[in-house]
């Protein structure tokens, strides 16, 4: 085993750690919205005026517990990901990281001195600038990871900061729309980290490429697209804070398709007894809910078809075939969880499990697309050669610590 192999293995493990931490963060985020606690801490990045990391434990009560834990966990994920991008970018990432860190630090300090509305963003920028400077100060002179991994690292670097900023601005600007974007972006971000872990792994390098028909690729792509659409619809429903817009399943208000005229909506609202501060439902909420149901059925059917086609086209034991079957199991479970969410009147733990499983469904769907799009080593080398004018570029991955 070479130093490079060892380093690659640890890089993969570290990226996997980042992904697991992000999945946990999504779970806590799901609990925050399920429990209506998104604004339980009204300030940001401070918490009830305290430095976020120094909020006394006695204040961690009710909804504050979920929201504050979400913030702390997000800080951990942010720090992990900044160092991941440093690892992926190798020693060449040090200078840009130092520049970015310094710029963020100075810009943050300038905002702190600026208008009150921007003070929070200023503290956030200055804080993350400090973390980035720390990452830049890591002395290891490791080579960049091969292929597009450094680029993915930079994407994760910017996305994690954007996510943090969006989460904070959603609090101080009281903007639900930001919450929708924040929720959906989190799922995409999770897939990015999983992709880094997979693409940097020895397993991926050892994987023999199998010819996947364009038709199967299309099925996988369409099914993954449907999962994304479902996530967007789900996030929109959650962030409208209207609770459960349709209380029965498989029927909807006792019908195959519910009425959405003003009189019917008024009637639904009269009969709703919300325990939490859900606002009255509107026709839009009923439509979103029903579209989510239709989308769920379409997704389940499409994933079933894709898994069936993968099973028929690929040899037993092929990773894509296995992944597609696992995906089908996940999506079927997710469908059942959706029904359970309705039957339990959107119980917080069930609704949160629905969010987490939705993330996993996206990750698995994305993985099937990665596997289906994987080229043979020769084809990949030819493509690299065509795009890289330097003939001396090493063919073998060399992201080990320099000796």
């Amino acid at each position: 085993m070479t130093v490079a192999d060892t380093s690659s293995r640890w890089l993969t493990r570290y990226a996997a750690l980042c992904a697991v931490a992000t999945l946990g963060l999504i779970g806590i985020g799901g609990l925050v919205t399920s429990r209506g606690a998104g604004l339980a801490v009204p300030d940001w990045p401070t918490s009830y005026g305290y430095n976020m990391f120094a909020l006394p434990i006695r204040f961690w009560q009710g909804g504050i517990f979920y929201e504050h834990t979400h913030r702390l966990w997000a800080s951990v994920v942010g720090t992990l990901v900044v160092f991941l991008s440093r690892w992926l970018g190798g020693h060449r990432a040090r200078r840009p990281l130092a520049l970015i860190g310094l710029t963020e630090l100075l810009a943050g300090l300038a905002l702190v001195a600026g208008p009150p509305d921007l003070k929070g963003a200023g503290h956030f920028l200055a804080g993350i600038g400090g973390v980035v400077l720390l990452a830049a100060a890591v002395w290891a002179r490791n080579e960049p990871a091969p292929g597009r991994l450094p680029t993915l690292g930079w994407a994760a670097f910017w996305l994690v900061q954007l996510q943090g900023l969006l989460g904070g601005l959603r609090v101080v600007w009281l903007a639900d729309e930001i919450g929708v974007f924040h929720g959906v972006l989190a799922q995409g971000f999770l897939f990015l980290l999983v992709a880094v872990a997979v693409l940097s792994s020895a397993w991926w390098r050892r994987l023999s490429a199998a010819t996947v028909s364009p038709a199967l690729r299309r099925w996988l792509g369409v099914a993954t697209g449907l999962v994304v659409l479902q996530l967007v619809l789900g996030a929109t429903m959650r962030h409208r804070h209207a609770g459960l817009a349709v209380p029965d399943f498989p029927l909807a208000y006792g019908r195959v398709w519910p009425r959405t005229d003003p009189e019917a909506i008024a009637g639904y609202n009269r009969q709703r007894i919300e325990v939490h501060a859900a606002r009255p439902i509107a026709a839009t909420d009923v439509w979103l809910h029903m579209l989510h149901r239709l989308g769920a059925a379409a997704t389940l059917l499409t994933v079933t078809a894709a898994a069936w086609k993968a099973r028929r086209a690929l040899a037993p034991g092929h990773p894509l075939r296995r992944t597609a079957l696992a995906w089908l199991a996940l999506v079927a479970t997710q469908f059942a969880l959706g029904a359970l969410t309705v039957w339990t009147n959107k119980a917080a733990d069930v609704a949160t499990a629905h969010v987490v499983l939705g993330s996993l469904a996206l990750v698995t769907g994305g993985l099937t697309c990665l596997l289906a799009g994987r080229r043979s080593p020769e084809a990949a080398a030819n493509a690299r050669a065509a795009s890289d004018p330097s003939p001396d570029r090493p063919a073998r991955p060399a992201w080990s610590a320099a000796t």
Partner: protein
Amino acid sequence: MRTAPILTTALLTTATALPLGAADIYGRVTLKGTPPPEKKIEFDALCGKLHTKDAFTRHYVVSPDGGLANVFVYIKETPAGSKPPTDTPVLDQVNCFYEPYVMGVRTNQPFKIKNSDPLMHNVHATPKVAGNKEFNVGQPVQGMVTEKSFPNREVLVRFKCDVHPWMFAYVGVLDHQWFAVTDKDGKFKLPGDLPAGTYTLVAYHLKAGEATQQITVTASDKKEVNFTLAAK
């Protein structure tokens, strides 16, 4: 010929605008039909300590003889002759509930939001009318008071606590003084001194919806106006 309608309108406007006399409006709101049962509130550990009995949601508070509480009753128009407010209404947080559940204030009238609980709350107002600003403030300490006001008319602004999501209340904001909230028996009485004229009286309940009646009052009139809202 458009002169006649214009004259009629002008006369009517004058008639309603001039405080020729003052009337008292009172009445009762009753609920027809059986409302869905209220749900038990699952308090967290801290709020649970403040309660010895089960507590329930307060969507339909109905007296044994059908009187509906927490109905916001108000004059839809803006009658002339409103006096400047002299009091400062209080929206209190007691035992992890907002008290009162429904109340009214005047536009630009400062009102207090108080935390009487030995624990922390946040106060999150979610108005929808342009100009009425959404706010979210923390009240971590018992006895804290925050003073707020809304510049524009809005029926009703929802207040909620995100720390304790079962806590919510509603505040009606009007640009005149003639409004009231029904008591536990469904009774209401508008402040006196309503100038003579013709008005639309509105009874609005969060769940049971809205009912309106045209009323014409004369000087020193005492008028009883009753409403019936439906649960289904």
